């Protein structure tokens, strides 16, 4: 039974989490994501879960650490400044191999910045953000529907790899309302058995959850295990949407809100007979490298003729991942604005038209 409702991206992410069996939420208010804790405050008791408005971001992420160690699906949410405060906890989650979902509804930065939509936290999300040699899974929804659909996936991947997963949205996606079909398209998997969880050790050996390896060689061995896990994630979990790629002269690369704008620009260019395409990464880490490699390998007819135009609400962050994936085999151009500025559909059309001429 499906039901179509008009709902904001923030509320959709909160409801998606509840549908995924999230049983614990702790957070501290910040615009533009306040509808998430507000929604959780009213829905969690109905859903049999726990909602806590923590005294600080630091407290919230550490409560999530505790809930996760106890074996339940746990999440927090914030925006840039609050996510920065949570980085210590996120590093500890990665170090203790604890699953958790962290939603970042990005706003303008650096510092306190402003509350306008932004994609300036891409580096922070995809380059670990906290200290140490780790990664978080990073999922980037581009519609209210996808904001809902990706939450169960985030919990599932976090559990599967015992790793924090970040859902990276922005102020537009959080605040806008769109139709949402609430029968989950993504089949929700139940929280798996967690034999490592701290559930009371009567009649079994005690479990230990820690990120501290002081004996010589132990930490390096642990890091090698982490790297093995990250390799598996990179091999199996990259996701993207590709549109009009095979004959494209210019391929736009954009995620989240920016991908919606790039897509409408691309479709208008197609109507005018211009060969534009779009790659929309859905996972930012792992980055969907293979599609770029496939499109630029030597020997193929389109080699060297493709230009990638990366469009971001930042002054150039994902563009670095595109350059790494392309590895010099094609030209990579950039269009971006930051601090609340958003490249428009016309900006995209103009930039592509210049390149395609």
């Amino acid at each position, binding site marked *: 039974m499906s039901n179509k409702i008009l709902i904001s991206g923030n509320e959709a992410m909160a409801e998606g989490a509840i549908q995924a069996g999230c049983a614990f939420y702790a957070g501290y208010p910040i615009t533009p994501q306040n509808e998430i804790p507000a929604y959780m405050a009213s829905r969690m008791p109905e859903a049999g879960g726990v909602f806590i408005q923590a005294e600080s971001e630091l407290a919230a992420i550490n409560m999530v650490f505790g809930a996760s160690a106890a074996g339940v699906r746990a999440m927090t949410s914030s925006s840039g400044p609050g996510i920065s405060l949570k980085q210590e906890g996120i590093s500890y989650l990665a170090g203790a191999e604890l699953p958790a979902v962290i939603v970042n509804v990005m706003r303008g930065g650096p510092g306190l910045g402003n*509350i306008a939509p932004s994609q300036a936290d891409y580096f922070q999300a995809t380059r670990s953000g906290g200290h140490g040699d780790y990664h978080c899974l990073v999922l980037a929804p581009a519609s209210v529907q996808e904001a809902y659909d990706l939450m169960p996936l985030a919990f599932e991947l976090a559990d599967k790899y015992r790793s924090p997963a970040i859902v990276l949205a922005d102020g537009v996606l959080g605040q806008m*309302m769109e139709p949402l079909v609430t029968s989950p398209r993504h089949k929700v998997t139940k929280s798996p058995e967690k034999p490592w969880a701290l559930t009371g050790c009567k009649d079994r050996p005690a479990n230990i959850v820690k990120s501290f390896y002081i004996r010589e060689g132990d930490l390096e061995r642990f890091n090698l295990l982490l790297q093995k896990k990250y390799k598996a994630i990179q091999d199996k979990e990259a996701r993207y949407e590709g549109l009009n790629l095979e004959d494209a002269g210019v391929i736009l690369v954009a995620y989240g809100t920016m991908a919606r*704008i790039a897509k409408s620009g691309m479709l208008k260019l197609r109507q005018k007979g211009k060969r534009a395409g779009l790659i929309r990464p859905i996972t930012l880490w792992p980055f969907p490298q293979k599609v770029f490699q496939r499109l630029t390998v030597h020997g193929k007819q389109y080699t060297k003729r493709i230009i990638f135009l990366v469009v971001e609400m930042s002054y150039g962050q994902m563009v670095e991942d595109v350059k790494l994936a392309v590895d010099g085999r094609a030209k990579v151009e950039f269009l971006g604005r930051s601090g609340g500025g*958003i490249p*428009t559909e016309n900006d995209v059309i103009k930039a592509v038209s210049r390149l395609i001429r």
Partner: protein
Amino acid sequence: MTEKIIIAGFGGQGVMLLGKVLAEAAMREGRFVTWFPAYGAEVRGGTAHCMVIISDQEIGSPYIGQADTLIALNGPSLEKFKSRLEAKGLLILNSSLARAGLDKGLKAVEHPFTEIASGLGNIRVANMIALGAFLSLKNIVGLESVEKVISDIAPEDKKGLIAINQKALREGARLNG
């Protein structure tokens, strides 16, 4: 078909609700819709606004650069957004609280929504009168759909206000003859 509408007024005039009711009704009629609010540090006495896009096609940006329609319920809103109307755009103006004085080419439809609402017995339904006036000029959503939405979304403690809001909508739809 794509219609981009900016709805603006004082905080408290119900501009957010006007937008939500319109977007919800359009969604139920099978259209693509987005509703995007101003969520900044709005101040009392200042303007509040939301942006609604209704389309037969998937919508890219929910943000409206140039609008097809501006529904302005007070003077400051008109000042803030009049430059954002398309050259042949439609202005729906609450003449109780604003005067047009527009550039040539714009189509302005002025009615004293606040006074009419007052006459109906509830000053707060000016928003629904404006929505009715808009829908009588741009037939993008059926009045019946909007009436249904009004009754469906009213919370338990506001059920008593459904009838006056629906009446206001009908009253607005009659204003343009």
